[in-house]
């Protein structure tokens, strides 16, 4: 039976948009919530939550993000790449996958930031590809931001640009040849000369009159300012359909409009929608398929149904948000273990969206992951392994290398 990778989303107080609005029951307070107190965005909560996930054997964590305050969810939040970088040198096994939106951040800066994260983490960086509209981005950035189908096309162009920039240094470009005085071999550094699709003028103050949603073309010359990272390219994680399958390393899947998002071990028997969407993502070219699972767990204070009702009453999840697009599970820790064991072989992994970090992540690391380890259902990331190593993904060949 193949192993199941466990990933966890770790933004703010929890993945449910109402997480920051409900009181955490005192009995379930954890190491990270105690010291962090009410500080949702400070360094201590972050450091401790990631350490807890790493200790429990989680394969990678994701950090949700948005340039502007999310319409529902926490008002305060620290930039995701910055958070991932902060925990990089104080962790050794866990993958760090921040969300960056391709329509928002400059492609050249994204490539530099994620390559730097890959170096600082010794090969544990990933890119969670942001998708969907970012309300207010146009006004904040003073340029039109692509939307709809244009955004999908632009996302593909940005991913192509990043892949090229990550390859613009061959692995052995730094030669330090004292005989000739050359630090680098310039034959092993490459311009990328990428031009995106889109129409009209490139972004500038002159595009102020262009309607929002129009896709202004961009071009990037390269090479990148950062040498190629330990993984060659950081692991690209994207919701299925956001990028062409071949541009993705890990496709995140969830239920379609007509599927019952609530999963039970029994519902996975036979032809489940999970098997169907996983097969589709694989057919589209994704090497690994990971199911997004929104989780509310029983605690000593309250049962999962009551907690879920309280959270939904605090803020109903917006359609299209990660929480609303995920499969659902609420109940006991042992029930979740059973469900995850059943998902082995159907998908390559599950990204758990813990409703409330202090509560659900605590149960996850205390009860769920240890049980999966005992059942030998999850891999144990080795210290020093890259995220690609842990996921069993090959290091990508360099598109510019001679003979490639």
């Amino acid at each position, binding site marked *: 039976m193949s192993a199941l990778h466990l990933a966890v989303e770790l933004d703010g107080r929890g993945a449910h948009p109402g997480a920051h609005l409900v009181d955490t029951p005192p009995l379930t307070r954890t190491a990270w919530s105690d010291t962090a107190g009410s500080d949702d965005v400070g360094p201590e909560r972050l450091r401790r939550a990631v350490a807890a996930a790493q200790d429990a054997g989680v394969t990678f964590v994701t950090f949700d993000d948005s340039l502007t305050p999310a319409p529902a969810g926490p008002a305060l939040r620290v930039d995701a790449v910055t958070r991932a970088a902060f925990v990089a040198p104080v962790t050794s096994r866990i993958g760090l996958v921040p969300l960056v939106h391709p329509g928002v951040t400059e492609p050249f800066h994204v490539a530099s930031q994620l390559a730097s994260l890959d170096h600082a983490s010794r090969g544990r960086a990933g890119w969670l590809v942001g998708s969907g509209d970012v309300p207010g981005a146009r006004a*904040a950035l003073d340029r039109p931001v692509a939307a709809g189908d244009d955004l999908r096309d632009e996302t593909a162009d940005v991913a192509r640009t990043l892949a090229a920039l990550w390859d613009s240094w061959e692995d052995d470009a*730094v030669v330090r040849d004292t005989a000739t005085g050359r630090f680098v071999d310039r034959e092993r550094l490459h311009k990328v000369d990428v031009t995106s699709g889109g129409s009209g003028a490139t972004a*500038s103050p002159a595009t102020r009159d262009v309607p929002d949603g129009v896709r202004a073309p961009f071009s990037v010359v390269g090479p990148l300012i950062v040498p190629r990272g330990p993984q060659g390219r950081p692991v690209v994680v994207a919701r299925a359909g956001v990028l062409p399958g071949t541009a993705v390393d890990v496709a995140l899947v969830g239920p379609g409009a007509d599927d019952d998002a609530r999963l039970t071990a029994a519902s996975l028997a036979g032809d489940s929608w999970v098997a169907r969407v996983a097969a589709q993502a694989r057919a589209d070219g994704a090497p690994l398929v990971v199911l997004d699972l929104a989780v509310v767990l029983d605690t000593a204070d309250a049962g999962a149904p009551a907690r879920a009702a309280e959270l939904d009453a605090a803020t109903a999840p917006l359609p299209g948000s990660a929480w609303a697009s995920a499969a659902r599970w609420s109940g006991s820790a042992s029930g979740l273990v059973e469900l995850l064991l059943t998902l082995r072989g159907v998908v390559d992994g599950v990204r758990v969206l813990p409703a409330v970090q202090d509560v659900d992540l605590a149960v996850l690391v205390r009860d769920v992951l240890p049980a999966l380890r005992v059942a030998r259902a999850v891999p144990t990331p080795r210290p020093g392994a890259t995220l690609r190593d842990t996921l069993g993904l090959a290091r990508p060949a360099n598109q510019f290398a001679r003979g490639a």
Partner: protein
Amino acid sequence: MSTATGPSSADYPRPHAHVHLGVFFQGVNHTTIWSDPASGSQIDFETFREVAQTAERGLFDAFFLGEGLRLREQNGLLHDLDVVGRPDAITQLSALAAVTRRIGLVATQNVTYNDPADLARRLASLDVLSGGRGAWNIVTTDNSWTGANFRRGGWLDHELRYVRAAEFVEAAQALWDAFDDEGAPVEVRYAGRTVELVATPTVPRSAQGHPVLFQAGDSPAGRDFAASHAEVIFSAHGTDHADALAFAHDVRRRTVAAGRPEDDVKILPGTQIILGATPDEAREKARWVKEQQVTPATALSLIGQVWGEDLSHLDPDGPLPEHDPVVKAIGETRGTPRPGRDAVAVARAWRERATEQGFSIRELVLDQERQRGFVGTPSSVADELAHWVRSGASDGFNLTPWVVPGGLDDVVDRLVPELQERGAYRTEYTGTTLREHLGLRAPVPHRRTLVTADA
């Protein structure tokens, strides 16, 4: 270089001033000797960790990272002789924040090819996660050659670079302050000539209020920008005391004219320190360092820059080319030593000097490379540094080690104790934020007097 046997300390305008030290990790030029066996990886995180932790052991104020958004070229080819390739500054400094406790973390970031809402947010993020140790070295590189890597190519008129910088900073400051009394974010609207935005921040204020603002740029417009907006200048006046003092006077005059107290802008010149047990040993080491920095290939590259053509085929131990440069002005190649100067005049002066002295190409280039910074024993250099800050020529120094990661060790182990003995250096960190280390006031927009001065 000045001598330290100046006035007795009572005569100094600032007799009790402390030397503030920063370390500038690896500029992209031939200062860093990569060929030395002690030279570590230029990209492995461990090298950065070691330098930052050494600096923190030496009670430095700050660790700096530079930025260059396009790899340098010369005569159309990627420059291959110097250290090249470095991490994104904010990303790397955020990682360093987790393995340091007190030292300030300064990210050089460009205003032409960043979006204010995005950059302000990333800087605030570094500041929050580091517990109030973040800073931004504001640079204005605006050429379209660099812009070819960005969505808005070479969109900004060079004359507007500091208009953009000022508007960018004001918009960033507005975002850093946009919280109501309950700490809830409020919307910011900013409309200028080069920045127009409506945005609501998500990152709360840090322990030091705002990231500290550094500026590096020497033109009159750059100095005025620093006088009105910056809190620290990373200057290029770090070798000659009289030159540094004149620069400091000029900056103080501009600072007062901008409605600020004259000590509101601190000055940290970039410089290099070479220490020896005796004056002779220090001089010998300085000569050796220069020879390592100016390799035969680098000497040919530097004359190639003046002549405007690839001269790497010449013999570095042979004579200078007999023909005149093919270009009028020395190219704007990044890192050029004398950008924009009359190439033919420079070449002729160099040929004259070489003929007079019987210099080969490399000897001539070594002769032309002036000795930067301070060379001497720990005691004599400590005297000089104390003299600089007490006389008001600078508030400290931003050191570029000639080798990393070990190049800072003797400064920390041998020079810092000498400074401490002279009462010119802290013996422990007394604050937790960079603003406190540097003795800075509250962020400029938080001060009523300045708000009225601006109005």
